[in-house]
């Protein structure tokens, strides 16, 4: 199948693989390599090419690098997925650049960008978190997935049962890319079919029998004692200005404003921005408006 086109989407000018903790991760780049760097981190189940709309707009002024996290897109799969490892990968990429960079993350990537800025403040000039302020205390409730109210032990038993099948599991192939587009639209109805066709073409591969996600089926099957109230207090330690960006439209994956403000109140130097007409996927839904806000916030 030939590569789809989408208005405004620009394929990376350069792509390379980068080893972090021995794991091969894909880095896509746009713009003059001698310009000031901006590193982009995508959200869960997405991949680095989700920035094909935003990156070229930032590349007019910056060297833009988009990291695809372990287990996603064309980056390598690992044996155990954990938040800390992803943050470590971002820090390793930042350290490899040899100069401080601006750091921008969306959703899970926004939370990880914030943690990377805490971990390696010497590497981060300014921080942008696009709707990545953690899940609500009761967890996100995507359509058709009820919140599990049980205490940890029985949920851990389910985790162990899943781990007994781990390594054998594979994604069910969808007959066509169009079927993947429809599946993803159930989760993200705000994203157009035309964009999803472009985005998923790079996030899935064609095999015998149809199309499968590139994301490791073992991703997101973790378990541990994490608590939502741990988000926020640590952000007091941020040493650079942070821009918290959200869309104005309701979205399953958008954190309620009251919960977001409570957490953001810990950030010492906070700027806020809203992008009109966007839901959770601000940079995919309104790339021009997102770029304008970023270009105003990020110093050359």
């Amino acid at each position, binding site marked *: 199948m030939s590569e789809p086109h989408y208005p405004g989407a620009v394929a990376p000018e350069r792509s390379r693989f980068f080893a972090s*903790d*021995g*794991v091969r991760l894909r880095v896509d780049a746009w713009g003059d390599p001698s310009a000031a760097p901006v590193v982009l981190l995508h959200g869960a189940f997405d991949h680095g090419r989700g920035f094909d709309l935003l990156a070229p707009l930032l590349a007019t002024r910056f060297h833009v690098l988009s990291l695809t996290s*372990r287990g996603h897109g064309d980056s*390598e*799969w*690992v*044996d*155990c*997925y*954990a938040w*800390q*490892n992803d*943050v*470590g990968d971002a*820090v390793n990429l930042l350290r490899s650049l040899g100069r401080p960079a601006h750091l921008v993350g969306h959703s899970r990537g926004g939370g990880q960008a914030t*943690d990377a800025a*805490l*971990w*390696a403040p010497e590497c981060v000039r300014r921080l942008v978190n696009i709707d990545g302020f953690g899940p609500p205390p009761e967890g996100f409730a995507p359509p058709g997935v009820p919140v599990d109210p049980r*205490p*940890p*032990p*029985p949920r*851990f*038993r389910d*985790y*162990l049962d899943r*781990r*007994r099948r*781990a*390594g054998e599991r594979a994604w069910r192939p969808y007959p066509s890319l169009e079927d993947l587009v429809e599946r993803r639209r159930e989760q993200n109805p705000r994203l157009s079919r035309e964009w999803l066709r472009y985005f998923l073409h790079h996030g899935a591969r064609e095999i015998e029998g149809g199309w499968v996600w590139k994301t490791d089926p*073992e991703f997101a099957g*973790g*378990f*541990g*004692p994490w*608590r939502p109230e*741990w988000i926020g*207090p*640590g952000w*007091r*330690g941020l040493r650079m200005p942070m821009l918290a960006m959200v869309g104005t439209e309701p979205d399953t994956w958008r954190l309620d404003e009251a919960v977001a403000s409570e957490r953001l109140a810990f950030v010492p130097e906070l700027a806020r921005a809203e992008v009109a007409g966007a839901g959770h996927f601000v940079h995919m839904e309104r790339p021009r408006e997102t770029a304008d806000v970023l270009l105003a916030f990020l110093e050359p």
Partner: protein
Amino acid sequence: MISLRHGRVSIALHPLREGAGPALLCLHAVGGSARDFREAAQLWSGPVFALDFSGHGDSGPLRGGGYFPENLAGDADAALARIGPALLVGAGIGAYVALLLAGGRPDAVPAALLLPGAGLEGGGPAPDPSVNTLARWADFGAPLPGCDPAVRRLERDVRPPEYAEAFARAAGRLLLAEGDFRQPAWWQAVRATPTATPVPGDLAGGLAHLATLTPD
């Protein structure tokens, strides 16, 4: 040695002794291996197995270095899937893993003996917002001989006492070694639950108590 699979990783299970009666599965501390439990074969009348956790002994490393107690519990659960119900004895991180399994699979783990050792404390009861928790987790220091260097992250994960307590309450019987070692908050919370009993702090004393809990 029996080679098991946990996900894409090869896990080594060492049968130390055959015998009649309840099986014993031994779980070592951070930096240890199945060899640490050779003595257990003389102290138990039933079959005795000892596991090498991922990144240790004859087991494979975890690609990407994501070592967490819950994933190690999956290593031990692969052994339970092979040998059937068993009593557990764990030292250090092995004790914490034994607690998770005793609470998560009480039907497969009727009782567990928890001993001190490397990895018992973890990274404290909650993240400390005043320290760079993530950098501390990643920069784990000197490698341990014969191990994947990243296994030292098993000394840094957060262990809230109420999380441990939930597993203790769901467990059958837990025997907690008494002795001169620092008891982390999770251990103290487990010790206060009705399922927990203090026992002498060495392997022999603990196994003698464990044997009294099981029908012959």
